[in-house]
């Protein structure tokens, strides 16, 4: 009957006992301790770990909030006030959760930019990237539903506008909207299901993130040079090198987060959401949270509702096929002189869209948002496929440990770099 026991050699007898039966310690050792990681990461490579930290903060604070929150249209607004005023440190828990959503998006957007700049989506990391896009979509759905829960004016009207987008689809549109609402307007059933889904989706998120990390550990990390790891000299074990470096990033991140939470917690909140939801009174301007503004601007730049909705969703869906749109074999923008500049034009267009999304769609803002939206698509659908064929990349270095040819500061191969490997 005896199955095969895992061969384990931990000195601690308890760990040894567990590990022979369930080799989680061997797994952790392999994936997080000795895991060979390119040694040339810059601080952009911190943002994946930061996203994990903020996700854990969101889940922890969210569970505590759910203990005191009432998902009922008559009670929701007051229950949030109760959390802010009467629950012990309720204000702290809620401000962490509320601002944590914004931090999560900042961190994730920078993480994605890192991927775009250094070509992390290219072979063999296409699936890793696509799982990342799924994570972004899940985050967006979760954040949108979370914003509805306080049941303020912007919660209610934001939910109304966004769910109504689905009515743009012919024939199935209105039935879909009714189905989403659980009725004929945004009301108690909507709030109930949004609360349920807002609690559920983060755990789905955890599952997809697990796949994202699992895929990462199969193909290995990209690096600022965008070239493959050639020898053990190119890598260091994850621990202690990147645990130490990630810790620095986490401390700086927590510092910025703390300054926002403790000294300007309402910086990003809309005054309208301090007014209880009122179906009879529309706010003069309905704006989503900042992290949705670029997509909102794309939606409003198109004078046809269905086309606007399709282009808005398309602006994220296009990321799924990005690995095949970019025809350049070179990953890192460092060695792509033209892409290196155009990626910043694209970033400027996205920020421009965000600014347009925050302003009423009249006059110059319409013109600008159309130009930016056009460029957004142009970048992915025209520039990237064509540029890969035309651009003459700079010569790639031979390896990570022997970087730029003639780039000065010749590092020592062998000796110095071999040392850390001995620890592994």
């Amino acid at each position, binding site marked *: 009957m005896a199955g095969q026991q895992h061969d384990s050699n931990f000195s601690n007898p308890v760990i040894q006992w567990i590990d022979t039966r369930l080799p989680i310690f061997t797994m952790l050792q392999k994936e997080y301790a000795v895991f060979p990681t390119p040694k040339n990461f810059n601080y952009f490579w911190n943002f994946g770990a930061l996203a994990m930290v903020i996700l854990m903060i969101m889940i922890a604070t969210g569970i505590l909030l759910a203990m005191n929150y009432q998902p009922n249209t008559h009670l929701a607004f007051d229950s949030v006030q109760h959390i802010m005023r009467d629950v012990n440190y309720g204000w702290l828990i809620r401000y962490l959760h509320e601002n944590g959503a914004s931090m999560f998006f900042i961190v994730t957007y920078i993480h994605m930019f890192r991927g775009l700049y250094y070509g992390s989506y290219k072979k063999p990391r296409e699936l890793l990237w696509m799982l990342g896009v799924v994570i972004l979509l899940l985050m967006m759905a979760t954040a949108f539903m979370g914003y509805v829960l306080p049941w303020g004016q912007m919660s209610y009207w934001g939910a109304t506008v966004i769910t109504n987008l689905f009515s743009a689809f012919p024939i199935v549109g209105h039935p879909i*909207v009714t189905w989403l609402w659980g009725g004929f307007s945004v009301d108690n059933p909507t709030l109930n299901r949004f609360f349920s889904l807002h609690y559920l989706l983060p755990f789905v998120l955890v599952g997809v993130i697990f796949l994202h990390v699992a895929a990462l550990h199969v193909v290995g990390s990209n690096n600022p040079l965008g070239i493959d790891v050639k020898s053990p000299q190119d890598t260091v074990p994850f621990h202690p090198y990147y645990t130490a470096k990630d810790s620095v990033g986490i401390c700086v991140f927590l510092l910025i987060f703390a*300054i926002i939470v403790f000294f300007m917690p309402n910086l990003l909140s809309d005054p309208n959401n301090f007014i209880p939801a009122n179906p009879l009174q529309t706010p003069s301007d309905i704006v989503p949270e900042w992290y949705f503004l670029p997509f909102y601007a794309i939606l409003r730049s198109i004078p046809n509702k269905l086309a606007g909705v399709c282009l808005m969703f398309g602006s994220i869906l296009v990321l799924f096929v990005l690995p095949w749109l970019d025809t350049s074999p070179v990953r890192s923008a460092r060695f792509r002189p033209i892409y290196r500049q155009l990626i910043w034009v694209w970033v400027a267009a996205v920020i421009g869209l965000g600014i347009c999304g925050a302003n009423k769609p009249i006059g110059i803002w319409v013109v600008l948002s159309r130009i930016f939206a056009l460029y957004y698509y142009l970048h992915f659908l025209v520039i990237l496929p064509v540029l890969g064929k035309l651009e003459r990349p700079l010569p790639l270095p031979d390896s990570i440990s022997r970087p730029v040819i003639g780039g000065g500061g010749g590092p020592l191969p062998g000796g110095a770099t071999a040392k850390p490997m001995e620890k592994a």
Partner: protein
Amino acid sequence: MRAVRSIFTCVLLGGLAAGGIAAAPALAQDAPTPPHQQWSWEGPFGTYDLAAAQRGFQVYSEVCSACHSMKELHYRDLAGIGLSPRQIKAIAAAVTVPDGVDDQGSPKEAPGTPGSQFRSPFPNDQAARAALNGALPPDLSEIVNAREGHADYVYAILNGFSDPPPGFKLQAGLNYNEYFPGHQIAMPQPLHDGQVTYADGTPNTVPQMAHDVVTFLAWAANPELVQRKQIGWRVVLFLVVMTGLTYAVKRKVWADVEH
């Protein structure tokens, strides 16, 4: 242009149409930006001026509370503006609040306790509208957070009443206010010089009373502010030290790697 506006209106009003609701006309956004005032709670070290907040509570009790509720507050919360438990008990006991039902099932009232919610002037919104010419006075618990311009806006409104400029058509029952969007506000000028008698001899001018009551309302909207900043400084200092230490460790760990 028109097409874009119509798509926006379409998206915006799609919900309204689906809900079978008529949209209220958008108010003209032609009010000037409220001028910035000096407030004691601003900046990373700012705290509430408790004397001003207490005077402001007096203004709220004697003037505002005739029409405006503050449902999110309890009398016990007044400890936050420096009132003693005895004072709070006396303030609560001076009002009657709803107290469930009696043995016959009829609603009954009882003197307030520190645990009671602030007494609302009207039993419900309909009663308020019926008594006030159709207007509904907003709850003031969060008013400072709930308006663009925050404390400056509330202060500007309280000081912004005047006769309408020549040619301005004021609807019957409304009042002219420079800072209100559209300039026509249902609330008549609430504060007048000498209206409240301060025990500490502070001059009871309209700007002074407005300043005091806004201080009180700012506290009511963010009662956690003082504790939040106190904890915040400790957290920030801790994280600064922690960041320094972590960076030193990182330098040491990486010292033997050429990268």
